[in-house]
């Protein structure tokens, strides 16, 4: 099960990365992970650095992916983002604004994409 989750996560990240690249974002990191946790994607566009949380769900019968991102998840991403910025001072110098974003993906039974939604600045 654990292994399966990771696979799903990886797949979500790929879809999200492709989607964001299509929107003109530059990808900095994929699945940046430390022993404290991980950030799915770190991207940038227009001098804004975004930390992206990706959620993928197969069908919406057991709740939407949006529901899965709560206050705790946002706080965790922010904590990780701060860690990342401390670890790479160069990047924090380069950018002024930092956002926490989310990409929610819903797949159909046959693994085709039913919908994909991008939320900017969910940390607020």
């Amino acid at each position, binding site marked *: 099960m654990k292994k399966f989750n990771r696979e799903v996560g990886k797949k979500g990240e790929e879809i999200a990365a492709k989607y964001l690249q299509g929107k003109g974002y530059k990808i900095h990191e994929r699945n940046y992970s430390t022993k404290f946790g991980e950030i799915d994607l770190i991207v940038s566009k227009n001098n804004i650095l975004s930390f992206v949380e990706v959620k993928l769900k197969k069908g919406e019968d057991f709740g939407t992916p949006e529901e899965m991102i709560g206050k705790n998840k946002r706080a965790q991403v*922010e904590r990780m*983002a701060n860690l990342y910025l401390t670890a790479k001072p160069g990047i924090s110098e380069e950018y*002024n*604004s*930092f*956002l*926490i974003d989310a990409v929610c993906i819903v797949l159909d039974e046959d693994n085709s994409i039913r919908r994909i939604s991008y939320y*900017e*600045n969910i*940390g*607020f």
Partner: protein
Amino acid sequence: MLTKVLSAAHFGLEATPIEVEVNVFKKGFPGFSIIGLPNKSIEEAKERVKTALINTGIDFPNLKIVVNLAPADIPKEGSLYDLPIAVGILASIEVVNLPAEKSFFYGELSLDGGLRHTKGVFLLALAGKSLKIKNLFVPNDSANEASVISGINVYPVRSLQDLINHLNGIVRIEKLKYCLSTGRSGRSIDSQSIEFDFSEIIGQESAKRAMTIAAAGGHNIFMQGTPGAGKTMLARATAGILPPLNEEEALEVTKIYSLTGNIPPGEGLIKTRPFRTAHHTTSRIGLIGGGSIPHPGEISLSHNGVLFLDEFPEFSRATLEALRQPMEDGRVSIIRIAGSITFPASFMLIAAANPCPCGYLGDPKRECKCTPRMVMKYQAKLSGPLMDRIDLHINVPAVDVDKLITNPTSSRRGGTSRDAVENSRQIREQVIKAREIQNKRFRGLQIYINANMKNKHIKDFCVIDLQSLLLLKQAVNTYNLSARTYFRLIKVSQTIADLSESKKILPAHVAEALQYRIRSGD
């Protein structure tokens, strides 16, 4: 960028200036925090401000925003900080330029970017004047309260968009003219619907006369009578014979009403004399005032007006006894950890009670079913010191059936020589005349009615002839009256003299006053 916007916090009837410091950071994670001891209603300002700005068409900055309400050690409450916070954010992101002169911003935002009626604008204007603030930006609905104060520019703000245009010099908001008689409706007692007219009350001539005296001199009155005799009706009809507030009185009342948010939107100065009723389950704090941040109670809300307590003995004893000190002083000091606040509470008390639990003690036709013990217990609720503070005590007996049948509308009085019963309008004119005499007498003394005279004022103002003095002396000796009752008797006599437009207190006036004195043992 850091901007500072001035606003105010209310503590009792005083407004303290509050500096709303807004910093929009250039760097960092987006966030919005308010510090400086805000309560829940200010915490929620975040959502109101954010939504109002977005709905006004402003790009809300995705940046870290910190709002500090300084001085940070005063607890703050209310929704009035919405506007200063919004203006602070707008100035920080350089959408508007703040005025160079000192200005107060004040008001609650609606989600659509409009401004809502906010309580306390009158007090804000008073504070602004004493602090030499030049401009006042307040919600349009509340602006009339502020226009009563001279020497300050009052800008009625309808919406954030209007304010942005004004501050940027695109479209100016027209400032309100100073005007004492503001209020959109301009309503007065005449246009206001009064529940009962005195002419509708059948019989009860002596009670009506006592009510007239009470209203003329602001004396406390206690009515005792059988159920259905018309005590409540008499009290409610009294609302229609109260004189309008004079200017100083109106300012005092408006202060309290502004603090509690009792001024309807669009109204300015309160000119109708307050008439408040409190149910007998009212708590002591509800009546006297209190709370961790002290708020005025019913006695302060009826300042310069009437407080009607029906079913007087049904109130809890603690509540009634708490009335004693404010009745004497005309104000009430509420002391809490947050500080001590004095609210004015110079009210005229109308109290109504049955003589016993069943209500028919002393009724000529119906038998009282109460045991003596029950009657004693009932009457013991009203303590001596409390009753001593009430100037007029009257009995309201049941109305004669003949009178009711012959004269259901009571346009005439059955069996007596006088034709028409006086209606409220006529009585009110008498009362107004008597009050004018009193206002002239106490000019500059911060007293408006005979009931509020201190003993030294009685010496200064009341002219009693020798015969009346003798009568008074006799009464004191035969009835064993207390010193307080003695002075209260003189005050009532003075009011009766004022009603008959006599310069001196004559024996007839004293004799009438004696009728209304406290009766024990009947």
